[in-house]
């Protein structure tokens, strides 16, 4: 970072990114906890995760307030302006990730009342992949590493593929045994939530790239989620 003539200004900018990363750290912890609550059927952990989401919301307000104050009082230009704008965008993405993690935990609470479904293992793998994207993209932000951001942006496709195969698997599962429809529907939503978390990580990656380089990622955005067009043939599935 270049030195600012007004020292307090540089300090305020740094405080903004510190707060944002603290918020990101909370989201990481929340997502990890939600995945664990799901795979280990841990109700207490799920409840704690649901309750802790409020903290992320508080952070969002703080970051926004701080960013707005910076804009109003310092009228930043160039890279500073991009940094403030990035903070505003990223914090809303992180807040959404927090919400999704909370939703995962809520569904874990419901699933834990039912018989264990074998597919939750596949979901926790998917969750860990999402967690990794989130970690990498936050690291890219703090290190101002556009290449890492680009790598995250590209690997979201893998998460989409995991989601596609899980989607088909769950559909087949429900056709085979209608008693599992209740649990499997929740699992479908969980998978969708994890896929959404990957999308938010991709958004953050785009923002980070813009913040560092001042340019938008020019490639075509990889779009791997094809479930909106997926159809599983009933007879085919039941005969498998």
């Amino acid at each position, binding site marked *: 970072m270049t030195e600012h003539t007004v020292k307090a200004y540089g300090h305020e900018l*740094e405080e903004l*990114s*510190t707060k944002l*990363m*603290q918020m*990101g*750290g*909370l989201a*990481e*912890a929340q997502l*990890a906890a939600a*995945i*664990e609550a799901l795979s280990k059927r841990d109700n207490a952990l799920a409840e704690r995760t649901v309750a802790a989401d409020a903290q992320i919301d508080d952070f969002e307000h703080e970051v926004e307030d701080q960013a707005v104050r910076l804009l109003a009082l310092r009228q930043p230009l160039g890279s500073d302006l991009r940094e403030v704008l990035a903070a505003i965008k990223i914090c809303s993405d992180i807040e959404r990730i927090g919400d999704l993690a909370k939703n995962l935990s809520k569904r874990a609470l419901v699933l834990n009342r039912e018989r264990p479904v074998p597919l939750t293992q596949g979901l926790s793998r998917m969750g*860990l992949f999402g*967690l*990794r994207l989130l*970690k990498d993209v*936050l*690291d890219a932000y*703090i*290190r101002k590493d556009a290449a890492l951001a680009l790598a995250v942006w590209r690997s979201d496709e893998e998460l989409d593929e995991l989601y596609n195969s899980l989607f088909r698997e769950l559909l087949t599962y429900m056709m085979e045994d209608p008693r599992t429809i209740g649990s499997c529907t929740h699992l479908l939503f969980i998978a969708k939530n994890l896929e959404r978390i990957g999308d938010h990580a991709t958004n953050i990656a785009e923002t980070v790239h813009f913040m560092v380089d001042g340019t938008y990622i020019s490639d075509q955005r990889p779009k791997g989620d094809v479930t909106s067009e997926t159809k599983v043939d009933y007879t085919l599935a039941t005969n498998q």
Partner: protein
Amino acid sequence: METSEKKAEHGSGSKTRSFLAGLNAQHRRDLFVLTGISAGLVLATGLSGAMEAGLSILFAGVIIFAGLGVGRLAAIRTEQALEESEPEAEAAAPMVDPVENARTIIDAFPDAVVLLDRDKRILDANAAARDEFVSDAVTGKVIGTVFRRPPIVEAIDDAMAHGNLREVEFTDHVPVERSHMAIVCPIHDHQENPIACVLMLRDLTAIKRSERMRADFVANASHELRTPLSSLAGFIETLKGHARDDPEAQDRFLQIMHEQAGRMRRLIDDLLSLSRIELNEHVAPSDTIDLASVVSDVVDAAAPLAETTGAKIEVETFDGSVHAVGDRDELIQVVQNLVDNALKYGATGGCVEIEIGRGSPAGIHHQTEGPTSFVVVRDHGVGIAREHIPRLTERFYRIDVKHSRESGGTGLGLAIVKHIVSRHRGRLHIKSEENEGSCFTVILPAPADQGLEDETGKVIPFERVAN
């Protein structure tokens, strides 16, 4: 530094003293406590590697506390020692910057250590920390932005605000699952205010893993014991109930109960002998024993079992004595377990071959410093698929659970063999082809005077003695 230059002529003793005198009391204690913790942890890790799963966790705890205790004690002693010389030392040495001192100290640590300033910025990180947690690119950043684990950020805040030493355990899930203990230790200035802070990260992954292994073992063992126990309980119920007046059923049930009780006894015997062997595993036996007599004892004992399966046991002896340095009872157990397996898994009516000799058998290259002897147990039965071989000596690992239970196996036989052989500083080779048979070779250290000559006075090489 000015201090050290001034003091250099007074020799190293007074240099240390002036260094210590430069630190205030609290800071000194912190350093010692830190050293104590780390010494404890180093010891604990060493021990836990050597010991089996369960106990190590407990020991780690105890030793960390002992480490803390030693650290504190050392701190108090040094203070006492310093008090005597303090007036002089204090007058001569100007104050040393505690943060600068900490910088040099953390570089010497094998664990990841990060030094933070008053604003929780990364001042310095030692090599281990740079490798794993904080790259060079982030020096000067606030720790919470790089090392984003909320409980640790909170512990650091607490340490800086109130000067508390904090320990936090945390687990990372990505990219691979790893557990660490974070120790946050504040550094105080001369007025006892926290001015910096040391974050030390100790890898607990291996300890956690062995903890899980222990849990698995306990679960397996209880499961193995519960199965025969519930069958016993069931038959007792029946005998008390509607089989009360049916002598024929009673006989049948009592026979089954007898078998089940036998299975439990075998399992408990095996568990006990396993733990006994493990207890002595670090002490190599020193007696010289005759392997031929070990083998003939086993063959006599295995005769009834061989008769029921219709198998033949052939012993191929070496002309000349074959000795090994070992514990006779334990080696009998080794050969017995191998022969039992060969009889159970060799095809019915087949032939089990036992061979003993000096050196190592053909086809096995065994690098040793001294003379060796070997025992080979070979069968021509079903054999073992390649993928099972590396896991054969794991406790309760069975290829065919049903067959193993039916033939009275406990799932511990080869685990016992492995531990005995390892206590003898020997080696176990397993070679097998499916449907061809298996060949288990145990190579044991022989007494120093063996292998030099045979009975005819001819010199025999260590490597191989012809059949």
